[in-house]
């Protein structure tokens, strides 16, 4: 498959700047910081635990991302379709996968900005005690990978509609299912009738279970592979959707 990295870089640059062209970026970053701090302090007992670690902070990330990543991803394609720019974009001498990758990377880089801004928590724990920095780094990496998986799913769903709100809701629902698939609520419902390997499969796909592993400081290959392969699969579907719309 031929790929022009120049095209990917151009799309990336345009989309990354677009996040900051509206107040959306500032609102998003503020909401993310406020929620992740608020949840860690008030619901997670950040201080009361008496431990200098970031566990209560990272524990909320799956739940935060399942709302925030669809918010970042929803405009990537739906807005192009609504405004008609998609017609201009896809008649430029570019390949669909170059645009798909460029847009995704822009959203992911924006997420990285948000995560970097939360590193003040890390500084706080460094001041208060001596956190295990290996665990913190692994957790940040895990959080970034999981965010990428949510984002790729959101971008893919965004390509299926011209309505950003629909894109947001559908992406949030799919993300919710992926988060919930590791909980006892879902697993108990399956255990009654499904064969054991199905239950294991569903559990192994759970974003929460895999993310928890990473936040315990073990860079486990299965968890990393799950998030990366989710990204690749979602982006591949994204390309197919963009191509299929030509024939529609």
């Amino acid at each position, binding site marked *: 498959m031929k790929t022009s990295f*120049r*095209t990917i870089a*151009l*799309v990336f640059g*345009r989309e990354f700047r*677009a996040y900051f*062209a*509206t107040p959306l970026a500032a609102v998003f970053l503020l909401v993310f910081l406020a929620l992740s701090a608020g949840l860690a302090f008030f619901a997670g007992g950040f201080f009361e635990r008496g431990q200098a670690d970031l566990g209560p902070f990272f524990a909320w990330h799956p739940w935060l991302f399942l709302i925030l990543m669809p918010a970042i991803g929803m405009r990537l394609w739906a807005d192009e379709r609504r*405004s*008609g*720019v998609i*017609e*201009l974009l*896809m*008649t*430029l*001498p*570019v*390949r669909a996968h170059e645009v798909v990758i460029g847009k995704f990377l822009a959203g992911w880089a924006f997420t990285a900005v948000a995560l970097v801004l939360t590193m003040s928590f890390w500084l706080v724990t460094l001041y208060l005690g001596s956190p295990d920095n290996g665990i913190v780094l692994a957790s940040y990496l895990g959080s970034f990978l999981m965010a990428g998986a949510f984002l790729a799913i959101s971008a893919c769903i965004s390509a299926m509609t011209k309505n950003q709100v629909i894109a947001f809701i559908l992406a949030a629902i799919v993300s919710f299912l992926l988060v919930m698939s590791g909980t006892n609520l879902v697993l108990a419902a399956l255990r009654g009738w499904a064969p054991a390997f199905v239950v294991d499969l569903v559990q192994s796909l759970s974003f929460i279970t895999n993310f928890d592993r990473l936040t315990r400081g073990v860079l486990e290959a299965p968890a990393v592979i799950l998030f990366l392969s989710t990204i690749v699969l979602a982006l591949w579907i994204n390309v197919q959707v963009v191509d299929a719309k*030509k*024939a529609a």
Partner: protein
Amino acid sequence: MQLVQASGLVKTFSRLRAVDGVSLEVSRGEVVGFLGPNGAGKSTTMKMLTGFLEPDAGTASIAGHDVFSDPIAARRHLGYLPEGAPAYGDMTVADFLAFVGRMRGLSSAVLGERLAEMVERVNLTAVWNRPIDALSKGFKRRVGIAQALVHDPEVLILDEPTDGLDPNQKHDMRELISAIAPGKAIVISTHILEEVEAICSRVVIIAEGKVVADATPSALLDAAVVDGQRPTLETVFRSITGSKAA
């Protein structure tokens, strides 16, 4: 070689046959006016010519490259103004045109030259650093033309380039199209019949997805002479498409 070549294009949406076997050839230096009532299939045909939509049947090529099997090569030779002149509203005119130029593979040096030419030719000086969202309809349309011209393509496909422009702007746009016409193959769709007479060397009229007339404007008028009186293009248009549209 025909710069634009399409044969037997067919497109069906759910059960509506929007385009039903349209064939079209445009050679260098020609400006083809693509006419037809609303819903006749003009935009759909243009979308297939540009490769944005895949036809159910038929082929299309731009400058000798098939738009479906060799899309990248075909699109390099193509400048396209989609219906409504869509653009990234959050970008300034300068940023947007630079983005399109770079996506089209222009080097920085060439891009600088081409942008300078666009500012002058399409008259964008006043709005060069303004966000596109803040522009009037006329300026937005001109930005759309500028992005189609930025790489100096051999083939231009313009979907209603003068829609929403005031009479002065329409005049300027026609002048521009006439000025760049030699050396290019241009297809423009329009509802404005005087425009066709002013700038088009050929008229293709489609109705209900089929080509119903393909001739020079004067030949079309000559063919419709009644009692030694040459009718207006509007009369011809109405008589050709009116019965079907009604």
